[in-house]
């Protein structure tokens, strides 16, 4: 117990309820969902409810046994084998799903044998139809470990769990299964003789998982390798024997604790009925596509009402400030820089909220695992795995959690390809860009039943998905891997979503979106306002006289607009935009869009704010309307067409759909693939592909 902090590891099978308990103990708000592999990294937090001692709770990704098969499962093993680590547990709370008792106790027995003192928190007792028949007291006695019944959904039993943690005293637990029952004597004696101070099962784990075992040095590895060689160590055979022996012992125990194995059949029956429909040869895909389709229509049509309202409010606020504050730099900074910038982000809250609500529902009900089941056969063709669908669907929200979620894929090649193509899925930061461009260039008409604008939006998502599959296929042909791909995954029983949880997700995600995106946008809109309002030469100061001199007509409004754009052209931002204009002209963009493109390379959600700022600088905020109206009236002086016409609008949307414009994603990809190679590959191929596709789109449409 270093530094007098008690480190408590929450560990158990996937989907057993660990994170639910973690949230209850720490008051934090980590993601919970009804499918295996929601948590993919460790997360620690203090438990403030315990007053008598300092307690640090660490939540881990779920694992079926001490033998990890994927990157997320490996997290616990590397921590529990490394006494130097900050997260090395003093004790474990093994979260045991009562509906899958035997399987969950397998891991418990291994943790005990690792010499980690463990208590059991038993979840899911509420879904057991015959919970009274489970003799928990007897079971606790047989397992030599306290069992605390808890409910991860409503917090029942938390006081008892906390009290049990508080009472904890360090001890080395008795092994559950004697190693002699599966390891032959010769090996056993060699191993214990070489490491007399270590727990025998730990030494055995060093041999089983030499590469993953964290706390051993190079000399130890040599010794271990020698023992393995001399005693002809058969890793797989031993593992199989060990598992079978453990289950046998558990069977014996469980037979006394409960009369029958009938319990969960009830549960499976409900799921069975639903699965019959959801995986039906015809209805299965129909429902899957239908759900996605419904989601996009909802994002488009339901959200438009609150969005219009927000847009008007911000427009009015800008006008009011512009009229109220005394004229000058501050006035224009606020009414032309900050207000449009912030408004450009708040307006998308309704869409983001609906999007996250849908994803939360898919995750909470257990449908996500069915999506894996339904799509595996198709994904396989493209070098992906059914499990890739989880990152690809959650990528609709954000690529960062999506890239992390790929940890759940066992096969490295499939995981890598999933990571590489995940940013092609249109994330929520692109939604604002799409929305505003669609409103500008796509007529608000209906084709039969469907709204044309909604269809285009869906088309952009489909484009991203199709490209993701295409690129995956190419990568599949290029990248070689000796590892064999497979899919073995549990399909959890269906559950009613917890509405509070869904609500919380929506709230949290919208808040993060507004504040984290808001922060960047706030800063960039100020910087941009400065860059757009000042210039290197004296042209800006003299703009009025220069333009008035050249102007022939007598339309006052037109003159003012000309002055404004003359000023912008000679500002720092103007020169920047002009500098890249030759490159983007073939795509149909002018230098103003060029400015927005430059700012979007850090984060694409900046686009709308930047456009709002660029197009409002210099105009008279008092009678400018909303961002959308402002963009709609822009005329390209070279072509005489509106800047945002069908061709340039589509080209721009396609560019944003594909381009890699997110530093944070690149950073996460670097972390997950442990090299700069892959993020650079990603940056290069995505930017190139975006440019070429946008070029083709513009040139064919114009």
């Amino acid at each position, binding site marked *: 117990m270093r530094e007098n902090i008690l480190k408590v590891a929450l560990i158990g099978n996937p989907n057993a309820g660990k994170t639910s308990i973690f949230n209850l103990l720490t008051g934090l708000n980590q993601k919970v969902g009804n499918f295996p592999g929601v948590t993919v990294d460790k997360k620690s937090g203090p438990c403030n409810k315990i007053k008598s001692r300092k307690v640090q709770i660490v939540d881990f990704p779920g694992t*079926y046994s001490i033998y990890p098969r994927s990157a997320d499962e490996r997290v616990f093993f590397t921590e529990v084998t490394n006494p130097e680590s900050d997260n090395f547990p003093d004790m474990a709370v093994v979260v045991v799903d009562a509906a899958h008792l035997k399987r969950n106790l397998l891991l418990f027995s291994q943790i005990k044998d690792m010499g980690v003192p463990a208590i059991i928190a038993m979840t899911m007792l509420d879904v057991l139809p015959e919970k009274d028949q489970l003799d928990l007291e007897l079971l606790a006695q047989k397992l030599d470990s306290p069992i605390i019944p808890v409910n991860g959904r409503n917090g029942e039993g938390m006081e008892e769990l906390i009290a049990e943690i508080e009472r904890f005293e360090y001890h080395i637990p008795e092994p559950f299964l004697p190693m002699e029952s599966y390891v032959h004597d010769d090996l056993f004696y060699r191993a214990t003789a070489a490491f007399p101070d270590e727990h025998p099962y730990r030494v055995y784990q060093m041999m089983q998982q030499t590469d993953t075992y964290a706390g051993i040095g190079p000399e130890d590895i040599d010794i271990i390798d020698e023992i393995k060689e001399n005693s002809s160590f058969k890793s797989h*055979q031993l593992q199989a024997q060990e598992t079978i022996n453990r289950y046998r012992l558990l069977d014996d125990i469980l037979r006394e604790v409960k009369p029958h194995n009938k319990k969960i*059949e009830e549960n*499976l029956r409900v799921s069975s009925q639903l699965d019959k429909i959801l*995986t039906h040869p015809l209805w299965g895909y129909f429902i899957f596509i239908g759900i996605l389709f419904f989601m996009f229509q909802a994002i488009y049509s339901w959200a438009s009402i609150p969005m219009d309202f927000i847009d008007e409010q911000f427009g009015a606020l800008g006008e009011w400030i512009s009229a109220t504050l005394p004229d000058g730099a501050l006035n224009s900074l606020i009414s032309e820089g900050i207000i449009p910038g912030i408004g450009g982000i708040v307006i998308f809250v309704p869409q983001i909220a609906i999007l996250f609500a849908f994803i939360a529902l898919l995750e909470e009900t257990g449908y996500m695992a069915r999506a894996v*089941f*339904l799509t595996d*056969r198709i994904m396989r063709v493209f070098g992906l795995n059914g499990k890739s669908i989880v990152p690809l669907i959650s990528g609709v929200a954000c690529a960062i959690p999506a890239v992390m979620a790929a940890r759940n894929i066992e096969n490295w090649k499939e995981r890598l390809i999933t990571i590489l193509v995940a940013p092609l899925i249109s994330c929520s930061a692109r939604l604002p860009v799409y929305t505003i461009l669609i409103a500008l260039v796509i007529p608000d008409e209906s084709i039969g039943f469907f709204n044309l604008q909604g269809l285009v939006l869906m088309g952009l998502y489909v484009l991203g998905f199709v490209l993701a599959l295409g690129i995956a296929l190419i990568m599949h042909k290029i990248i070689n891997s000796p590892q064999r791909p*497979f899919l073995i995954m549990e*399909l959890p029983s269906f559950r009613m979503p917890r509405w509070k949880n869904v609500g919380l997700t929506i709230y949290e995600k919208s808040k993060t979106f507004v504040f984290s995106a808001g922060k960047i946008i706030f800063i960039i809109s100020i910087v941009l306002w400065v860059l757009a309002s000042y210039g290197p030469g004296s042209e800006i100061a003299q703009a009025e006289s220069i333009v008035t001199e050249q102007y022939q007509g007598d339309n006052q409004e037109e003159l003012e607009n000309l002055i404004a754009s003359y000023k912008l052209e000679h500002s720092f931002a103007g020169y920047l935009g002009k500098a890249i204009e030759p490159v983007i002209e073939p795509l149909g963009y002018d230098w103003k869009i060029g400015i927005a493109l430059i700012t979007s390379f850090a984060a694409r959600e900046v686009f709308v704010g930047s456009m709002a700022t660029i197009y409002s600088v210099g105009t008279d905020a008092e009678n400018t309307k909303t961002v959308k109206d402002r963009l709609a009236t822009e005329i390209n002086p070279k072509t005489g067409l509106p800047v945002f016409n069908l061709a340039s609008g589509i080209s721009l949307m396609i560019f944003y759909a594909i381009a890699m414009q997110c530093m944070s994603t690149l950073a996460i990809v670097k972390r997950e693939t442990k090299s700069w190679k892959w993020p650079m590959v990603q940056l290069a191929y995505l930017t190139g592909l975006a440019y070429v596709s946008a070029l083709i789109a513009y040139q064919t449409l114009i």
Partner: protein
Amino acid sequence: MNIADLKIGQKGIVTGFSDEELSLRLLDMGCLPGEEITLSCIAPLGDPIAIDVAGSRVSLRKKEASTVMIEKIS
């Protein structure tokens, strides 16, 4: 015979595995020799399939399923 030979609703008892590496994962998940399994779903394209074993529903590809030897029961 193996799991891949079953039709929906048919049951079998696991007798062994023909692939050691895959068997480890299945053993971890409670799919042990002597355990009763039921084929519960087949994905629309005929692959993967889902079996009910030891109280949980596990999906696996046909190829993996064919490494699990069973004895059919009626």
